[in-house]
């Protein structure tokens, strides 16, 4: 990938094409479950357009970021709740 950004998902380094959403990066990292609901159920992206809030992750320590609405940046660290 010539035009790629380097980032981490749960501490694991990955490279994704520049312009990818964080949600795409998490999926590329092999994770389809992004978080757990309050009652403990696994959740992942549903609408892909910022409405459903199911794809929330922590980005550089900021909780509850909608991963489908944010583009990947060099050095970004994404954390999924276990």
């Amino acid at each position, binding site marked *: 990938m010539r035009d790629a950004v380097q980032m981490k998902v749960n501490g694991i380094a990955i490279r994704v094409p520049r312009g990818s959403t964080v949600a795409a990066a998490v999926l590329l990292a092999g994770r389809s479950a992004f978080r757990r609901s*309050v009652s403990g159920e696994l959740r992942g992206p549903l609408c892909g357009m910022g409405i459903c809030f199911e794809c929330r992750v922590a980005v550089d320590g*900021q*909780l*509850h970021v909608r991963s489908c609405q944010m583009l990947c940046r060099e050095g970004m660290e994404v954390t999924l709740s276990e």
Partner: protein
Amino acid sequence: MSSNANTYDVVIIGAGIVGAACARECARAGLRVAAVEADYVGGATSAGMGHIVVMDDSEPQFALTRYSQQLWHELAPELPPDVEYMACGTLWIAADEQEMQEVRRKQQYYGARRVPTEILDPRALYEAEPHLRPGLVGALLVPEDLVIYAPCAARFLMRQARAHSCDLYLDRVTEIRDDGVVLQKGGTLSAGTVINAAGTWAPELTPGLEMRPRKGHLIITDRYPGFVRHQLVELGYLKSAHVLTAESFAFNVQPRVTGQLLIGSSRQFGVEGKGIDNHIVAGMLDRACEYLPELAKMSAIRCWTGFRAATADKLPVIGKCPSRKNLYLATGHEGLGITTSLATGRLLLDHLLHRTPAIPLEPYSPSRDMEVAHA
């Protein structure tokens, strides 16, 4: 219409937290009680913050809030988990030297009345609350203040009342008579004693009761556990809450057990609609972000409004209604109804049973001259 089934010792109008507390006290004392709720248990209560706070606007306000807080402390072991009792304390935050003088005055006032407090210097303040903006001067910690989830507290009080001898009617009272009340769905409830605890609606049934609805907005965030650890209130809050102008804001943030943050507060007179006023929400959020800059990156998930029942002298109305034979009032608690609900119920019961109350009831008397205290 009245039969034995519809005959009670006490009918309570309104099952917000004040009505529920009255119902619980009366039912536990063995009185036969009916509570009539037009909306749902915990009405306006559900719009409030659930901050059990000792206040010092006036001696009667201090006496009532402190007494009631002690009743909450006593009740704590019985509260179910959904009441989310959290002994987090209040931090009254001083932004400048003038507010720091107020911190010291407050500490003396509380100390003289045996309420423990602690003055935090800037280092201690930032240790306690690392996300507050730099440059603050200090704070007063009131560790015995606490937080509850008020709707569940109101339901708990009502469950306890019903477990004794209280019937709950989901209906609207259309008229108070000398021998009971008339219900909208038809029929009457007979009772020697009627307690009007209908909050901002109380004057509709008891004309002449001097109260105004004072609108408030609250905002709740997503879950950010540990971000805030105490109920945070700016000392400027006092200026805001006391000024009887059309609208005012103050920084007032509450941590919830869930990790959510409840963000207040606003006060508006003369606004009828319960819709969200965007300029008010913007003003509140600006104020909150001034004190907690990182809030700006967080998600708010809901916003709502409610109406406080405000009297001119900022004291509730508790006691015998002078113009009616068997009518008692328990309303006008403005922003302190959740704090003072338990004391209100206990004081009214003491009065009904001719027992000596723990604190004098006279300052809250419906026949007091509110303008004198206001002036």
